[in-house]
């Protein structure tokens, strides 16, 4: 029996909503990936990467139709509670933890919103424990928290979801390695070459500068861009704080350059 008053439904927290628009179909190749802002495959401070990193040079491919295209998802793929982690696994009440909204836009390197793209996210509960049969951390499972969700960006690239703030957790790397609080993100974009998995961190977390995974990123600015600031203006008073996390995918040329029927 749930004796609590019903909690308010999750609403789009965005203000100043831009007008929808229909971008022209782009079908050119993607901008070359700048690998200097990504972690190298072989990053010895993150020990698991040592045996799992290719050692040969990657073979650079001009994007063909195989990489310009990618899977298309729609609202039919999602359920109504998929972007509400406070409710999507609740059994007899709310999950324990700080209630937060995470919102932002999926953009490309030209600043355009990436519309209708699938964003998936997963995280530990407020105590830093994952609902996963391989996670044996002593912090307890929360019976009301699954820890995953997904959203489709709207026609401007905007997405949002509600959850509880995840806790930090220890892991086997050095004897005293702890992950800063983080949410894992998976993003598709419009083509296979934009596919990205990353993690979002929280402003002010003192574990950020000592995390062996986060510090695989060689570029300080690139690391800072994974840290979501508190966004008080988007919070819901007496309900939830908000954090803002924009995700940037590779930009795309408007037309395939070996075949420009309109001289674009």
């Amino acid at each position, binding site marked *: 029996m749930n004796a609590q008053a019903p909690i308010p439904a999750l609403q789009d927290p965005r203000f100043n909503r831009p007008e929808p628009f229909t971008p022209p179909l782009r079908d050119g190749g993607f901008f070359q990936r700048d690998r200097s802002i990504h972690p190298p495959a072989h990053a010895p401070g993150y020990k698991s990467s040592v045996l*799992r990193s290719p050692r040969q040079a990657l073979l650079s491919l001009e994007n063909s139709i*195989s990489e310009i295209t990618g899977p298309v998802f729609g609202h*039919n793929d999602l359920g109504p509670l998929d972007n509400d982690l406070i409710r999507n696994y609740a059994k007899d009440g709310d999950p324990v933890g700080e209630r937060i909204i995470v919102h932002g836009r999926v953009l490309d390197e030209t600043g355009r919103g990436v519309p209708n793209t699938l964003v998936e996210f*997963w995280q530990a509960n407020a105590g830093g424990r994952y609902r996963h049969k391989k996670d044996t951390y002593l912090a307890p499972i929360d019976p009301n928290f699954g820890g995953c969700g997904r959203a489709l960006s709207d026609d401007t690239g905007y997405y949002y979801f509600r959850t509880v703030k995840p806790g930090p957790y220890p892991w086997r790397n050095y004897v005293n390695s702890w992950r800063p609080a983080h949410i894992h993100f998976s993003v598709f974009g419009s083509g296979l070459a934009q596919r*990205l998995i990353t993690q979002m961190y929280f402003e002010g977390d003192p574990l950020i500068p000592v995390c062996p995974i986060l510090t695989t990123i060689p570029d300080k600015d690139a690391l800072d861009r*994974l840290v979501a600031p508190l966004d008080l203006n988007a919070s819901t008073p007496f309900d939830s704080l908000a954090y803002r996390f924009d995700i940037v995918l590779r*930009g795309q040329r408007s037309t*395939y350059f070996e075949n420009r029927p309109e001289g674009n």
Partner: protein
Amino acid sequence: MPQPLNYLKETASQTAGPYVHIGLIPAMAGFDIFEKNFSNVLVTPNTQGERITLEGRVLDGSGSPLRDVLLEIWQANAAGRYNHPADRSVGALDEEFRGWGRAGSDFDSGLVTFETVKPGAITDKAGRKCAPHVNVWIVARGINIGLNTRLYFSDEEAANAADPVLNLVEPPVRRSTLIAKRGERAGKVVYTFTINLQGPEETVFFDV
């Protein structure tokens, strides 16, 4: 100072970690949460084309299978057409085939399987004929940025020999790391593959 170009920078990649299943295949993490789930079965009973199983493993630098790896595949349908608006080639679309699936490796054996159809040959925008292939994307704990590779088919020797991407691979002996071997099991067509992350037979990975 010239004018700034003001491009944004791509968001940095981070490892998918050992618990990637929670978000992407929650049933493998041990729970049921979504009404609709993505899977390693790309076909419906009405999909056009030859039914095939892709079965393989990803091996680390010690030759051990990764037991926590996640693979996604993206492929054209049996007519060689991708289910995406940017593919305007002549092959017919198949409404019963999205062309995408994901699979986690078995926690004991490391085996990864997909149930799909064999893709047709692709004509790309430059008019080049490309051998039938499946695009593969790999993430796991210890993989800092998703790895892109391809699977070609052992029974497509002539098409493979003419494929513009396979022909970029030097030395040619490495091309064989991209070929899945056709076999049969209980009357079903099974293509088997091994993806080596390191070592003398390291698989060819692409910067796409």
